[in-house]
């Protein structure tokens, strides 16, 4: 019982999810159906994939605001180049561009010591510029239907996009919890100076995490474009804000040093279920914005009140 209370204290978001599922199941006949849960997974996979990467970066004590622009860059490249280079090559270039943007961000954070917030704020503006330069403000359409078919396809009646999201969530969980790199993520975020003293190569470590989130953002953008069979230069606007919301809802600390993939999954699902459920109840999407904002602040408030003893030990 004690362990249960502790885990609820640490991740109150799962309680919220259960409450939401119960509420929506009783108030709408279409909500509690396998079909709809598949929908929710597909809908949340876009933000979810980025959130997985963001968890690493935020536990590190950094942040990445450029993910929304990276989504657009990768999607535009993958759709725009596939006519000339074929789908596989175009997708590889799209993913590569995401990794490259992450590497640039990581390298600047490492070498210059400028705060990640500022570095990626710059990149958010600049990468959006790159997208517009490349696309010349045009939307691209995937001429090859194989591309958009992929976004609709299923394996064993499970949507591929949902499967990719679940698989990568498991990979990210293992990477964060059971590997050396994962332990270093917490060490660097918890106390950077101590991590340096302990011999962790903090710079390259953060670089890898930025490349990771760049890859995840690019993947998310490409999968999103397969869903639509198109890409627009304004794709992914505000995604950075939604992603950070999801990760924080999942209990990751902004100051770094604490957070889990399970929590992030909870945060992502909470947003997805709330949106889906209210959509089914035909509540205008405006109200979702207000509710999301209120929940974010409430979770922050509860976290502060519930964990007040835990955090006092760490504070100087």
């Amino acid at each position, binding site marked *: 019982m004690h362990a249960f209370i502790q885990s609820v204290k640490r991740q109150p978001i799962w309680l919220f999810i259960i409450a939401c599922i119960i509420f929506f199941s009783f108030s709408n006949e279409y909500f509690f159906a396998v079909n709809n849960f598949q929908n929710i997974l597909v809908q949340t996979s876009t933000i979810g994939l980025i959130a997985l990467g963001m968890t690493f970066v935020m536990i590190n004590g950094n942040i990445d605001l450029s993910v929304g622009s990276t989504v657009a860059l990768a999607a535009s490249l993958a759709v725009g180049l596939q006519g000339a280079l074929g789908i596989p090559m175009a997708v590889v270039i799209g993913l590569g561009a995401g990794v490259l943007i992450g590497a640039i961000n990581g390298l600047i954070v490492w070498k210059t010591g400028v705060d990640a917030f500022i570095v990626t704020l*710059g990149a958010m503006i600049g990468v959006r510029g790159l997208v517009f330069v490349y696309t010349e403000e045009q939307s691209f359409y995937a001429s090859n239907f194989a591309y958009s078919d992929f976004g609709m396809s299923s394996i064993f009646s499970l949507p591929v996009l949902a499967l990719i999201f679940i698989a990568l969530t498991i990979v990210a969980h293992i990477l964060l919890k059971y590997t050396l790199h994962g332990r270093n993520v917490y060490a660097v975020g918890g106390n950077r100076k101590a991590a340096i003293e302990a011999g962790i190569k903090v710079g390259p470590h953060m670089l890898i995490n930025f490349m990771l989130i760049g890859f995840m953002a690019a993947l998310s953008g490409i999968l999103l474009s397969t869903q639509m069979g198109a890409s627009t230069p304004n794709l992914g606007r505000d995604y950075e804000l939604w992603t950070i919301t999801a990760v924080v809802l999942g209990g990751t600390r902004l100051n770094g040093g604490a957070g889990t993939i399970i929590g992030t999954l909870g945060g992502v699902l909470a947003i997805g279920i709330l949106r889906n459920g209210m959509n089914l109840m035909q509540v205008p999407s405006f109200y979702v914005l207000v509710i999301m904002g209120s929940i974010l602040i409430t979770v922050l408030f509860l976290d502060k009140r519930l964990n007040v003893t835990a955090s006092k030990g760490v504070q100087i």
Partner: protein
Amino acid sequence: MKASLPMSNSSTVATDNRKRVLQFLGKHGILLAFLLCMMIFSLTTDRFLSTGNLLTVLMQVSILGTIALGVTFVVIGGNLDLSVGSLLSFATVLVVDLHDKVGPTQAIVLTIVFTLIIGAINGTLVGYLKLNSLIVTLGMLSAIQGITLIYTSGQNVDIQDQENTWFAFFGREAIFGIPVPAIIFIGLAIILQVVLLKTAFGRKVFAIGGNGVAAAFSGIYRNRMVFSTYLLSAFTTACAAIILGSRVMGSQNNVGQGYELQVLAGVILGGTSLLGGSGSIMRTVIGILILGFIQNGLLLLGYPYYAQWLVTWVVIILAVWLDIAAKRGRLLNDF
């Protein structure tokens, strides 16, 4: 310090010189960048350095700039305000919608009141409840956008009789050839610069941002001060909304989307530290003007408007890098 020793060799002198150069760049880099920017555009285009064009730039940046003035106070106090973009949408929609319903004067007063109430909510959450400002204002960004959409039912609003209202004064008219938006921006900047540098209020804002514990021991109420900085940023956002509403005589319900980060870019470019405790209104104005001149100059040179985003990327990082390198005495980090 090592240069004063008799045995100092050439390499320490070299590092000392480099340090000095770095410190100079860190301190005045933003002014140099500003002048460099002006020079390049004056030499490469013949229309850049004309009164008309400079006034145009001043007017274009006035909305972003007016918001940035208030946000500077918040940032110096050691917090962030990401809600100003949504708040701008909210206030602009409100002032435009109320204009036809209750008249211009009442609309302006009500808009300022309601915007201040939202600022007070921000201030209470961050100041009195001591919640993380980034997350709180991120939540408020979403919530305020939702409230705006609910208020307008997703519709855009506009003023019916655009020709015969004195409300046009704030966005469309000029005094002695100077556009009113520019006058409001510069006027507010001067007032707030004086407040920041010459009043107890300003000193206290620096104190809570620089060292909250020390400030508390000096008898400064951090909570109350943080609360006030959010009121201030809400107020300047309301002023910006009045300019915007008056200029457009209508409003989309998401008109302020993305402003929060643009504003921060200007504030950071001016050299205000995100950690709090340092910064100035003057420098924020220069930061905002640089953004404006880059945009204007590149357009005059015939580049598409999005070229400015690429340049902004480089300029922001260079500016902050120099600032940090100056404090560190070295260009690169060592871990």
